[in-house]
């Protein structure tokens, strides 16, 4: 209750707008302030976030410079309804409105990062996006399957990369260096960038990042968390050519390499904090690599019935190699390589009947996998038929979508959407857990989803908007659902289940947004109806020494919640902001191998009630700024059976609540240099994000320096 009281007292001071927006106030704003007003482009049609009929968040470079996030997921962690779970220091997986992993969708410049091997529960792939290569990140909460296809259930994040700007008179070559150091893990991040122009029509952007993270130091009691550090190397480049002022061709590439990221919680080096029980493995580590290349065409302001054309052709390689050394010194090596070819076409056409956005998407994955098992003496014991997912496999995802933003009807604005998808899997080599023989599988599925949203301006002055909508999300069974033969959670092994079908989710949402000169506030309630979700069920068998779980379409349930966010400029230089999340959810599960024994229990790893309050000061000339932020989370004791048995990640009785304070300050030294300092977790509190395999950092002094020349 102390948390509630504290939050309510601060909320009493906290409703604000980042910039004033009344007519007179507009004219009093400096051009710097005017340039700080953010518009959201989540729908690829520039729009004021206030007028969008859903909850969004967008973060740009200015926000990055203020917060200096270490990873992309860390950049999202102040967003209501987003809980950034971390299985390991280098494996963060945001839960958005109760869902994570393959039930959230990550895009890089519109290209899907999700592929057909993404698994149930948290994954590591979001940590393979270098935040230093990004210009902007947008989050669309709730189902986005109609526009973005399979997996967009809890939310969709589009990470947009730097570069590709048209040339101006003063734009010559520009070099940029960035360095960030953090004390809690002796972390070092360095980046060099080059922005230049080959001629008046062609820009070139190159970037290289090198990162070294030593073992993360937790709070006062936990101290250093062994085997948590890892290195990372990133390269990115973008060549942009303006065929005409309105037609741009972009050729881009990015590479991310991560080495030796340990899942410490499942090893003997795991934490015993609050009664946690470390695993028994001597090693669980993974190397991760990702190479994305794409060619995109963006044509705008075309003088035809098609006003905009966006075409993207991409090749995405994602590879992982895992090492597991068991307590008896037996060694397992496994891995997956995925090559994904993507083609998307999106068109936009204005018409008297509304603005149409329509297009098609095609993705094909080529998947290979391996698994080798070695005896304690180092001799090869056996080579398995498949790795974590089926070897020698392909997976196709083809979709077509249409959205119409109808002409405004008085104060009412309506948007309707529909989408058709076809998914097909061809799994070449699957290990049969019963016979131990190789088998194969082919299957295909079709899905139709739709949705509609409405926004009503409540007053003529449009200080108040209400919105409501219903949207469907779907997820076709992927190779992980169908063929995964790998460790699942703690102490379980997931075996192939080829009999599953697409799962569907329907989200109902209503909210209100208000904005005045110095204050803004948004609140929404959402209810996601879960039908026939693919859930794990124990079989009662023991495979490779672990309890076998299989999957079936029998998870019915719901997740619902409330999210609030707002800010108020209490003084020209002082701004207070706050955010709040509450959610709950239940789903059918099968705790035993008896298929008739079904229980309704809390959804796994549900975000606890969480609040955030912050106070920021900006120097009148923007030379300096300072900020204090306090994050509060309640103890999460609403646990599923899987949570309770995940004893290396979730303490007995649940994950403790916490109150953590952070101080930040910045100095814009001149036009080309800025310095940011932060003291995170000021009180050196021991805490972990619910469901994580590692505690958050203890007191952490972070310094960041950005120099352009």
């Amino acid at each position, binding site marked *: 209750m102390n948390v509630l009281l504290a939050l309510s007292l601060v909320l*009493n001071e906290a409703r604000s707008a980042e910039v004033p927006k*009344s007519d007179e106030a*507009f004219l009093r704003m400096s051009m710097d302030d005017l*340039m700080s007003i953010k*518009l959201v482009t989540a729908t690829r049609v520039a729009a004021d976030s*206030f007028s969008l009929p859903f909850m969004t968040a*967008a973060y*740009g470079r200015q926000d990055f410079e203020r917060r200096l996030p270490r990873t992309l997921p860390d950049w999202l962690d102040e967003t209501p309804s987003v809980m950034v779970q971390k299985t390991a220091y280098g494996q963060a997986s945001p839960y958005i409105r109760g869902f994570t992993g393959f039930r959230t969708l990550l895009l890089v410049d519109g290209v899907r990062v999700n592929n057909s091997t993404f698994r149930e529960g948290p994954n590591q792939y979001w940590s393979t996006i270098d935040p230093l290569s990004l210009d902007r990140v947008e989050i669309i909460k709730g189902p986005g399957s109609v526009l973005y296809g399979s997996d967009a259930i809890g939310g969709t994040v589009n990470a947009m990369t730097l570069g590709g700007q048209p040339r101006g008179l003063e734009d010559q070559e520009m070099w940029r260096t960035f360095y960030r150091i953090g004390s809690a893990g002796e972390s070092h991040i360095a980046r060099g960038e080059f922005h230049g122009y080959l001629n008046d029509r062609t820009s070139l952007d190159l970037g290289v990042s090198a990162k070294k993270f030593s073992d993360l130091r937790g709070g006062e009691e936990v101290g250093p968390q062994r085997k948590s550090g890892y290195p990372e190397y990133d390269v990115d480049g973008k060549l942009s050519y303006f065929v005409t002022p309105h037609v741009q061709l972009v050729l881009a590439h990015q590479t991310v390499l991560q080495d030796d990221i340990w899942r410490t919680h499942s090893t003997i080096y795991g934490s015993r904090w609050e009664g946690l029980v470390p695993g028994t493995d001597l090693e669980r580590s993974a190397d991760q690599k990702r190479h994305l290349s794409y060619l995109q065409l963006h044509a705008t*302001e075309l003088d035809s019935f098609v006003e905009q054309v966006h075409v993207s052709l991409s090749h995405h390689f994602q590879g992982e190699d895992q090492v597991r050394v068991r307590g008896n010194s037996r060694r397992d090596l496994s891995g997956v390589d995925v090559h994904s070819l993507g083609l998307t076409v999106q068109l936009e056409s204005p018409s008297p009947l509304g603005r149409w956005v329509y297009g098609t998407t095609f993705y094909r994955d080529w998947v290979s996998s391996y698994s080798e098992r070695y005896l304690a003496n180092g001799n090869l014991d056996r080579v398995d038929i498949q790795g974590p997912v089926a070897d020698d496999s392909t997976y196709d995802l083809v979709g077509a979508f249409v959205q119409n933003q109808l002409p405004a009807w008085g104060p009412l604005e309506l948007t309707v959407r529909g989408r058709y998808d076809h998914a097909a899997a061809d799994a070449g080599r699957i290990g049969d857990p019963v016979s131990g023989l190789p088998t194969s599988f082919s299957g295909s599925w079709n899905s139709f989803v739709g949705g509609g949203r409405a926004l009503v301006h409540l007053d003529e002055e449009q200080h108040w908007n209400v919105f409501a909508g219903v949207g469907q999300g779907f997820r076709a069974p992927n190779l992980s659902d169908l063929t995964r033969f790998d460790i699942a959670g703690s102490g379980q092994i997931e075996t192939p289940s080829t009999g599953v079908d697409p799962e569907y989710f329907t989200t109902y949402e209503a909210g209100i947004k208000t904005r005045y000169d110095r*204050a803004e506030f948004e609140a929404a309630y959402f209810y996601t109806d879960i039908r026939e979700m693919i859930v794990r069920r124990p079989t009662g068998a023991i495979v490779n020494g672990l309890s076998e779980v299989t999957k079936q379409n029998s998870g019915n349930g719901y997740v619902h919640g409330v999210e609030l966010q707002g800010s108020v400029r209490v003084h020209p230089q002082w701004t207070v902001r706050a955010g709040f999340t509450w959610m709950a959810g239940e789903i059918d599960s099968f705790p035993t191998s008896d298929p008739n024994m079904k229980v309704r229990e809390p959804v796994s790893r549900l975000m606890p009630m969480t609040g955030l309050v912050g106070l920021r000061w900006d120097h009148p000339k923007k030379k300096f700024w300072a900020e204090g932020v306090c994050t509060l989370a309640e103890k999460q004791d609403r646990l599923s059976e899987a949570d309770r048995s995940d004893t290396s990640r979730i303490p007995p009785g649940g994950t403790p609540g916490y109150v953590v304070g952070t101080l930040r300050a910045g100095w814009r030294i001149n036009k080309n240099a800025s310095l940011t300092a932060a003291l995170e977790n000021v009180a050196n509190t021991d805490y972990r994000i619910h469901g994580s395999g590692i505690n958050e950092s203890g007191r952490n002094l972070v310094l960041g320096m950005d120099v352009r020349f």
Partner: protein
Amino acid sequence: MPRRFLQFVCLALVALLNFHVRVEAVDSAAGLEYKVKGAFLFNFAKFTEWPAGSFSTPTSPLLIGVFPSDPAAPILKQVLNAATVNGRPLLLKWLTPDDDLRSCHLIFLSRAEKDRAASVIAAVKDAPVVTVGETERFAHDGGIINFIQRDGSVRLEINLVAAERVGLKMSSKLAGMGKLVKGGRN
């Protein structure tokens, strides 16, 4: 629903009802973009010096030309209504195709009026008129200032050479806010 959550909702509602914010004017969701740009126009007028003879008296109004069919026009009028710059009232002038555009001190063309851009730029190519657009390459094609979007925010392209060629002097503060481009009437 847990009792503690209901308690929180009650407290949050009380908090909401308690905060007092002075409402200064209207905000338009759909028109936010043009309110921002209207304020930029105000600043352009403030930080630009027109050549001698551009105004008949020290208090003559500064005329901002806008085509009335432009959907941005009513929003600009709302923002700029009754504003004064350096002692001069700002007056929005509804343009017609037959008007002498050179009588304006500043002309704004939104995306909806992009088809007029070339003819407007040509009509004032030798006159001290700050032409402001928001379509790609507007400033490269001879317009003085172009609004573009970067990082979700409004940014400026300024054709300083074209401005100086017709006797317009932009303060270093304004020139320093945008990306300098060249082209068109250079």
